[in-house]
């Protein structure tokens, strides 16, 4: 049994070894940091910076509807909505698509702003207040 356990202990040590914990000392940390920072948004580059800009141009408590070209929930809308919820702290983010795939365009009524990325919509009752980052921010007309 001593031999068996010696092999098993060695297998635990080898099998549990995680090389990236050593590689990180020798890697290009600036490049790794850039890659890791971009990681969550890799599928839709540009969206997160756009939403951050929206955050800088909307007041706390504002209700912001998210309009993106990805209409299917699991095809990108889920990401767009969740990501905006995190990045737009202190704002109420309004989804226009539900997990079952149904669109809820009537929710424009509840929005103070519409953050439209990857498209330039014309919406009755809203006017553009800023464009950039691949999108446009619309504000409800008084």
């Amino acid at each position, binding site marked *: 049994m001593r031999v068996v356990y010696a092999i098993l202990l060695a297998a*635990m040590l080898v099998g549990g*070894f995680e090389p990236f914990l050593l590689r990180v000392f020798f890697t290009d940390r600036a490049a790794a940091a850039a890659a890791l920072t971009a990681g969550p948004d890799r599928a839709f580059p540009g969206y997160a910076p756009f939403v951050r800009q929206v955050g800088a141009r909307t007041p706390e408590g504002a209700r912001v509807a998210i309009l993106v070209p990805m209409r299917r929930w699991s095809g990108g809308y889920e990401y767009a909505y969740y990501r905006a919820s995190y990045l737009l702290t202190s704002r109420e983010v309004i989804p226009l698509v539900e997990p079952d795939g149904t669109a809820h365009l009537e929710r424009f009524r509840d929005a103070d702003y519409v953050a439209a990325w990857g498209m330039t919509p014309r919406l009755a009752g809203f006017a553009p207040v800023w464009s950039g980052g691949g999108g446009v921010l619309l504000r409800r007309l008084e």
Partner: protein
Amino acid sequence: MIAFTLAIAWALGAAIARSLDPQARGARLAALAFPLGIGACALALGALSALGVPWSRGSALTSAALLLVIAAAAATARMKRAGRSAPGLEPRPPRSALAWIGGALVAVLVAGHALFATLAPPGEWDFWAIWGLKGNAFHAAARIDWAWLERPANQFAHPDYPILLPLAYDFAAAIEGTWPERQLGLLFTAFAASILLVTASHLREATRASLVAAAGALALAGPVLALPVGLADLPLLVYGGIALLELRSAAIDGRRERFAIAAAALALAALTKNEGIALVVAAAAGLVAARQWRRLGAVAPAAVAAASWIAIRSAHGLSTDLFGGGALARLGSAIAAPAALLRALGETPPEYPLFWIAVALAVAAGGARRIARERLLLVAVAAQIAFFFGAYLVTPRDVAWHVATSWPRLLAQLVVPIAFVAILFAAEALTKAPAVETPDFRLLTPDS
């Protein structure tokens, strides 16, 4: 820098650990301090919110200082009493050169984790859609924002999950005066370092061999340090690991102080993640299996903590989707046709498969006597795995997706107790350690 937050948590945790166990010192004290301390800091913010006191650097510092004074006073009183009655600690075993090298390697790996964890903000989906999202929302509101949790549009953030981790983020944010997104990774480095030290401390105690302790910490370093930064799995692993290892040791030496540490860690586990609530029952099952009937009280604080959270979330209408409409029907059909679950499990191997195979074989090769001796840990682990399977059987989601996105993380939550047993068995076989022959090893007999 988040270093100040870490220092506050560590100081508070050290005082709490000494107040619970006056004999806690050295590596064990250092290891217990951070998890207990950051848990207390998080709960302090929860208390401030309940009292209607907005979070700020001042209120967070004041509440932590108040807790520190109370814990330090309790620790001083306990140490005075313990000084009169407690037996002295056994001398530490000498450390071999190999043990020092092993320990240094672990330290290097932990330092690597600190570097990696702070390269970028936590990037896991579940950080910015659940744990970090809640922390950020609470930070913006300077309180636990129940209205935010109750909002139907935020259902995706699992408002029913316990909120200790978001509150820990908020304590750091209150101290730093901003949302310290990128620095939050250091909390996870501290958590990981703590559990590696705790495990090493228990292995050294069980085998009297520093080399075994270092080897155990080294073997566990990868599976522990590679857990996702920003998610609650690592904190739960730490609290659960501390609780189970302290329960095991307490069952052997009968020290009530160890049960107190276990009780505190288990309560914090219950407030960290839903699996932590299940772990309370699993730990109780382990105690029953080890015939530690009178020690079941050790899980009482955790049971109260879990029940409190469940009551609070019910009062706010925060339901869990797992047991939503038709759970019994889903359970029935999943049991009748388990192929989908079994196929999903077969297609989702754990991270570090060689490590896990070796661990499983080492436990299995331990023999009936050793396995029976370690039944507290093994039954607790088995019960927790049964809970995982139960969740898969009632899941309203696609079971293949659910298993693929959670099974490796769930299994990793149990790596400490199961690997501890495996390494202990290996050490006993390799060094002829005396654990089995120890005459007062109370796990062998009922404590009544």
